[in-house]
C-alpha cells in the first residue's frame, strides 16, 4: 500500500544522477576534496564541562538556556510568574511533570485546561515537560508522542517547561546520536521565538512564545 504513496518515477529520477558527467571534463582545482568518508566526528563544545556529573551538567545547561533567551526558575518561584507574565489561562500537555506544574499554577489562580487548538491559541501559558535537555545549547527537546501534542509549546504566549535534571545531556550529539525512537514530531527548543528580520533588531515572540520559562525538577 505504500506504493500508492509513491509518485513520479523513481527510476527516471535516479537515472539522472551523474548523467551530466561525460560532457564536462574533470579539471582538478587548486583545492581538491579530501577522500570521502561516511564518518562524522563527534562535535566537542568548549562551553560544556569535562565533568559530566549531574550538578556540573545542570549548571552548564542553565547558563546556556539563559544565554539562549530562556529564564530558569525554581518551583517556589512559580506562583510569582502568574503576576509577572499576566497569566490567566493555560493549556497543559500529557507528561507527569507538566501536570504537576499545571496544578501549582492552578492553585495560583490560572485556569489551565487540556490541549485543544482554540484554547491553546488563546492561552497565556503552555505547560510541557521535555524528554531531554542539552547543556551545550540550552535546548529542551519536546516529543510529540510523549507530550501528546505539538502546539502546547508553540501557540501560547509563554512556554513553561519542566526539565527533569536526569534528562540533561551534554551535547546535541548525545541526544541525536543515541538512536532513540523518533515520534512524528520532535523539536529542540532553544529559547523564545525570535526574528531579526526588521533591521536586524532582535525581537522575540514573532510566531511562537515570547518567553520560555524552565523549571529544573
Amino acid at each position, binding site marked *: 500500500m505504500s506504493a500508492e504513496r*509513491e509518485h*513520479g518515477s523513481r527510476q*527516471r*529520477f*535516479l537515472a*539522472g*544522477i*551523474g*548523467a*551530466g558527467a561525460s*560532457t*564536462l*571534463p574533470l*579539471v582538478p*582545482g587548486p*583545492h581538491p576534496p*579530501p577522500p570521502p568518508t*561516511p*564518518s*562524522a566526528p563527534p*562535535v*566537542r*563544545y*568548549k562551553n560544556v564541562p569535562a565533568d559530566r556529573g549531574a550538578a556540573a551538567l545542570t549548571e552548564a545547561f542553565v547558563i546556556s538556556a539563559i544565554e*539562549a533567551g530562556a529564564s530558569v526558575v525554581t518551583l517556589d518561584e512559580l506562583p510569582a510568574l502568574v503576576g509577572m507574565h499576566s497569566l490567566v489561562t493555560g493549556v497543559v500537555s500529557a507528561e507527569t511533570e507538566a501536570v504537576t506544574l499545571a496544578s501549582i499554577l492552578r492553585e495560583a489562580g490560572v485556569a489551565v485546561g487540556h*490541549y*485543544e*487548538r482554540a484554547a491553546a491559541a488563546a492561552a497565556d501559558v503552555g505547560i510541557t515537560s521535555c524528554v531531554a535537555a542539552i547543556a551545550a545549547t540550552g535546548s529542551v527537546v519536546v516529543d*510529540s*508522542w510523549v507530550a*501528546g*501534542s505539538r*502546539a502546547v509549546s*508553540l501557540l501560547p504566549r509563554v512556554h513553561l517547561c519542566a526539565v527533569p535534571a536526569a534528562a540533561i545531556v551534554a551535547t*546535541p*550529539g548525545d541526544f*541525536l*546520536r543515541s*538512536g532513540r525512537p*523518533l*515520534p*512524528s*514530531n*520532535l*523539536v*529542540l*527548543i*532553544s529559547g523564545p*521565538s525570535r*526574528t*531579526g*528580520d*526588521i*533591521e*536586524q533588531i532582535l*525581537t522575540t*515572540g*514573532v*510566531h*511562537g512564545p515570547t518567553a520560555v520559562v524552565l523549571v529544573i525538577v
Partner: protein
Amino acid sequence: MPPDTLRDRTAVAVADPVLKSNLRNAVDRFSTARERGLGELVDPDGLRHAARAMRGHIIGDWAPTLERLADKLLANGAHVCWATDADEANAYIRDVARRIGATSVVKSKSMATEEIGLNDVLAADGRKVTETDLGEWIIQLAGEHPSHIIVPAVHRNRHQIADTFQAEAGMVERRTEPEELTAFARTALRERFLEADLGISGANLGVADTGSIVLVTNEGNGRLVTSLPKVHIAVLGAERIVQTWDQADLLLALLARSATGQRLTTYTSVVTGPRRAGEADGPDELHVVILDNGRTGLAGTEFAEMLNCIRCGACLNVCPVYRQAGGHAYGWVYPGPMGAVLTPLLAAKEAEGGGPAELAGASTLCGACMEACPVEIPLQDLLLALRRKKATEGGARGEHAIWRAWSEAWSRPALYRAGNKAAVRMRRLAPVAAKLGLAKRWTAGRELPALGERTFTERWASGER
C-alpha cells in the same frame, strides 16, 4: 522585476542607500557572530574539513541514500514525489492542493520553492498563499524577491516596512518600531495559520536512516506550518540529505553557527511521518517532494561539490561583491558566491537576462567564501571553472583574439620593446584614450597611473639604477 543585465541590476543596487547601510550592518553582524559561534567548538576547521569529506561520501553514494530515504519515508506513512523539474514539483503540489480543496496555504521560508516559482502556480490556481517568515512576508506584500537567503528583507528599513503594512496588510495605525511591526505580523499571520488547510515548507535535511525531515526556523513558523494544517508538504532539494544521525549532528552544529552564530536555530524540528493515532495535533498527510531541477546532472562533474551546500549564507556575508551589491543584483533566487555558482548550473534557462554565466565574472576570487563555508566548498575554484567553461564554449571570441595577439607580441622581445616605446611616446594621449570605448568603464571610477617618459629598458641601458 529587476533589470535584465547584471550591470544594470548592480547599478540599481549600489545606488540604494538603504540597501547599502542595512546590508553592511547585517553581514558584519552575521560574520562576527559566526566567528564567535564557531569559536565555541573545539577545532571548527577540522569539523569543516570532516564535513566536506562526509558530504563527498554522501553525494558519492547518492542514489542508494535517496532510495533508502524514500523507502523509510514511505514506511513511516509519508507520500514521496520524485520531481525531476520545477514543472513536475509544482504540478504535484497543485494537485494535492486541488484534491484537498485547499483555499488557504501557509508557507515557511524555502529557497527551493522560490526556485521553482511555486507561489505563482498556486496563486494562478486560486489558492491564497501566505509566506509566514517575517522577512519573506514583507517582501511578498511588497511584490519583491528575497535579497539574502537568511534575512530576505535586509534591503528594507522600518519605515518602508510600515508603508508596506499600511498599504498591503491593513495596518490602520502606523507603527514603526520593530517590536510593534513584529507584533502586528504575529496577529495577522496567526489568523492565517489557524485558517490554513495546507502547510508548505522546505527541508534543511532528509535523514535516510529514519526517514526524517529536519526543518530549522527561529521564528517558529516552520513549526506552525508543520503542526496546524491537515496536510504538510515539504520540498526537499535532492542533495540535502544525510545517511545517519551522526552526520546530521555534525551538519546541524555547523549550520546555525555559520548562518547567524547561534548555537542551534531556535526551533530544530524533526518530522518523521504524519500525525499518529493518539496525538492531538499534526498533519494527517505528509508529502515529501524530492526535487532534482538540474541537481543530479552535477554529480561526477567538476561542479559536484556545489551539491554539498547546506544554504547557510555564510559565503554571502563575507563576499566583497555581495556586500556591495546585495542579492537582487544576482538576478535569480540564490545570491552571493554560492548563487554565482549555482545559478548558471541550475537555471541557465530560467534566469532573467539570459546571461547567468556572467555571474562567475562578478567575483574577486579572493577565497573568503571557501574560508567561511561550513563544508569547505572551493567556491573560487568553481567560479574559475565556470569562467573556463564559458570561454571554451565560445562565449568570448573577441576576448580570445585579443589575448592571443597580446601573448604573441609579448613573447617576441623586439615587439615587446617596440610596444613599450610606443606607449611611452604616446603617453600624453593615454588620459584621453582611457576615457573612450571599452576603457571608459574601467576608468570611470579610477585614475589611470601616469606613464614615465622613458621605458624601463631604456632607463636600465642608460645606467640609471
